[in-house]
């Protein structure tokens, strides 16, 4: 049983852990800083700023795949964060340059789709609340329309109903986009350059493709230490769990 005294002490330790991680970073001890941030994550902290710091350290160290992962997580928790967006774009650009230098050319898609870009500044919970409010208003107007007999209120309700319906539709679509409802599986990022995609969840299975670092994939299934991923171009296969990070 925990008491009210326990909780403040635990919060204190989380704050001191966070401060300690920052100090380690400023001292130049990136390894310690990373370890402390990851302890915070393990303790259940799901904060946009912690993810941002993790992403920043990884980006400065050149681990752009992990930087992308943590920037995406930070933006999911704190939509509209321009710094995180810039960091994400810079990570993609840096990956592209690195790949171009080694392979001669590279294609890095740094721009999200239009739908994703439109809902990016808004949080999922905000969209969900707006859907709920609009839905209640829409059906209330429909119900009032059915019982109102006077001309003027009927006209007003008749105008309000389609407008509300349209707003509800747009919000619902936005929420579906934000919640990633159009595709199966969970969005993830490849963390290792040229990570193998195998035919089965087995290290002995034949590798059918290699995926570059920073590529977005969708995780549809998990089995032991492997995840089944799906990529644009209908490529599907199994990758090691450590090579992929869930956003």
């Amino acid at each position, binding site marked *: 049983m925990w008491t009210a005294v326990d909780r403040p002490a635990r*919060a204190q330790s*989380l*704050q001191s852990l*966070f401060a300690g991680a*920052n100090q380690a*970073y*400023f001292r*130049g001890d*990136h*390894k310690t800083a*990373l370890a402390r941030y990851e302890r*915070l994550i393990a*303790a*259940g*902290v*799901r*904060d946009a*700023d*912690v993810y*941002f*710091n993790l*992403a*920043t*350290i990884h*980006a*400065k*160290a*050149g*681990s752009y*795949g*992990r*930087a992308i992962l943590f920037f995406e997580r930070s933006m999911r*928790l704190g939509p509209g964060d321009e710094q995180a967006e*810039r*960091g994400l774009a*810079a*990570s993609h*650009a*840096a990956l592209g*340059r*690195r790949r171009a230098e080694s392979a001669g050319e590279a294609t890095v898609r740094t721009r999200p789709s239009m739908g994703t870009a439109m809902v990016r500044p808004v949080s*999922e*919970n905000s969209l*969900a*609340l707006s*859907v*709920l409010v609009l*839905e*209640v208003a*829409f*059906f*209330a107007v*429909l*119900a009032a329309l*059915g019982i109102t007999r006077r001309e003027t209120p009927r006209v007003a309700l008749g105008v309000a109903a389609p407008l509300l319906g349209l707003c509800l539709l747009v919000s619902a679509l936005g*929420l579906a986009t934000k*919640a990633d409802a159009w595709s199966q599986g969970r969005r993830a990022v490849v963390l*290792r*350059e040229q990570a193998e995609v195998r035919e089965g969840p087995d290290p002995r299975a034949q590798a059918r493709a290699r995926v570059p*670092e920073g590529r977005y994939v969708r995780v549809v299934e998990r089995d032991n230490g492997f995840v089944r991923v799906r990529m644009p171009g209908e490529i599907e296969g199994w990758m090691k769990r450590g090579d992929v990070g869930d956003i």
Partner: protein
Amino acid sequence: MQLEPTHIALGQSCVLRVRVEVSDGEAERIELPSLDAFDIVSRQTSRPMQFSFSFGSGQQQMIQRSSTAIHTFVLQPREAGTYRINPARAWMGGREFASQPQTLRVSAGPAPYTTPRPSQPGPGRGQPSGRARPRAPGAPRLHAIPEPATPQRTKPELDGAVVDPDAFVRTAIDKGEAYVGEQITVTIYLYLRGPLSAAPAIETEASVDGFWVHDLLGPDRQLQAHRQRVDRRAYHVYVLRRFAAFPLRSGELTIGAMSVRVDRSSLFDVFAGGPLPSLRRAGVPLSVRVKELPAQGRPRGAIGVGRFSLEAKLDRTQVSTGDAVRLSAILRGNGNLKDLKLAAPSIDGIEVLAPQIRDQVHTNNDVVSGTRAFEWLLVPKRPGELTLPPLGVNTFDPATRRYERVTSKALTLTAAGQGVAAAQAADATLEPDAREPEEGAKFGPLRTHSALRRHHRRLLTETWFVALLALAPGLWLAFTLGRQARRYLQARSGRATPERLIKRARQRLREAAQRARDGQSADLHAEVGQGLRDALEARLGEPIGSMTRSQLAKRLAERGVPQELATSLIRELEQSEFARYGSATNTAADIEQSVGRSEELLSRLEALKPRSMEQRP
């Protein structure tokens, strides 16, 4: 195009002036020579003002007959050597005009003293790059100006102006001796006997070689005359120009003479046999003795002449290593702002990028003042606390004749994070993908404050939220279905079956009979008649209210109602009508008989199966 002087020492400045003068028009395009080899200390473009003419009021306005653009550059070469400045070009009416190229010699040692060039005849109208040359006081005029008929005298109290009974130009300066960089205010007056009948035209601007000038009069001013008596003659005095001139070098410098033409035509010329001839007058060039700044106590380096203050600030005092901060320094005060230079701070561990300089010059009571703002980007290369030393500029105040060093406060900058060199070495220890941070500077800075939220609840996964989402449409659906059901039931009850109707009629008849037995017999016969009619309508499936007796009998026969029943029904209906409106009193026996007959008829109607309308014979 004119360059003065043509031989300077490294560190000194020269003045390049490009003058483009076009009569009855404006140059379509002007191409100035490239000056990339120089530091442009200042740049000024002046276009003599043009005013619209208004006639008939006491205030006359000036019309500029020729369009003139004067581009003045103060240049400082970066290295010793010989520089060729390409010609300036102008295009007008499909023709190209070019000036002469200029050559500047820059020696590493001290430059020889250069005397002013000998005066040359001024240009004719419409030729570009021409200008009037100065002449020494007392020297014969070089312009083709008709000699006045009456003798002239110079007036020392009028700055040596040559007084003419009809008109003369006077150039006045507020001081004949000044230090290098000290403001001299120059005013050029036109003295005229009588008011202006036509606007005077400026034929030649006053030359200001060796000066940086700033106009003190606004572009939309009007000429206003004041009266002054000279040699017992009353003149109208107009201010043609007023500007601040800052000498750029020591020695004898000359403010050149302006020449004007005054037309004297008027409406009354027709009575006078023709217009009076125009008056052409030129002022007298004035010399200014420019002194070097006093040697005693003179600090090394550049010196700004005037009275200034200096303020410096950083846009932020804490930054990550490798990120840039902006250092702003503002020099504010009276004097030659354009000549002020501020050395970039030099701090170990900080990279200083080239500054951006912005000037704001204005005048107050004919004194030039304003601000000169410098902005540097500083990039700390190593972490730690870095102290920016105070910025400073040496100044000389001509009023007090004292040197003063104006400084800002020292500033402190804290840089956090590992230095660039250390970062490149330390990154190899990071697992699992340790690589060079080629883009490290674009990321961050790290966030030092966080609420450390531990729960991120997604509403979409909350049961109560999903339930609420489903509640609204569910309620609406239930509401709509309920209304539909009610309507259906109402409609259904309105279309009651004949048996139901007959049963209802029987019920009502019994109730009416009971009321009659209780002494309320008024509606008994109405109930009898109504009940029989309702039962008939229900059984026949058509209204009978509008039918006459014979029509009803015919219809009943058509529908297969037995003759005897039809006759009984009609008779009972008639009797109920008579009894209803009659005044006879109903006895108990009457009531029972009536009720009995009606019930029997209702029972027979209930059992009746009339022919349908299509089956009628």
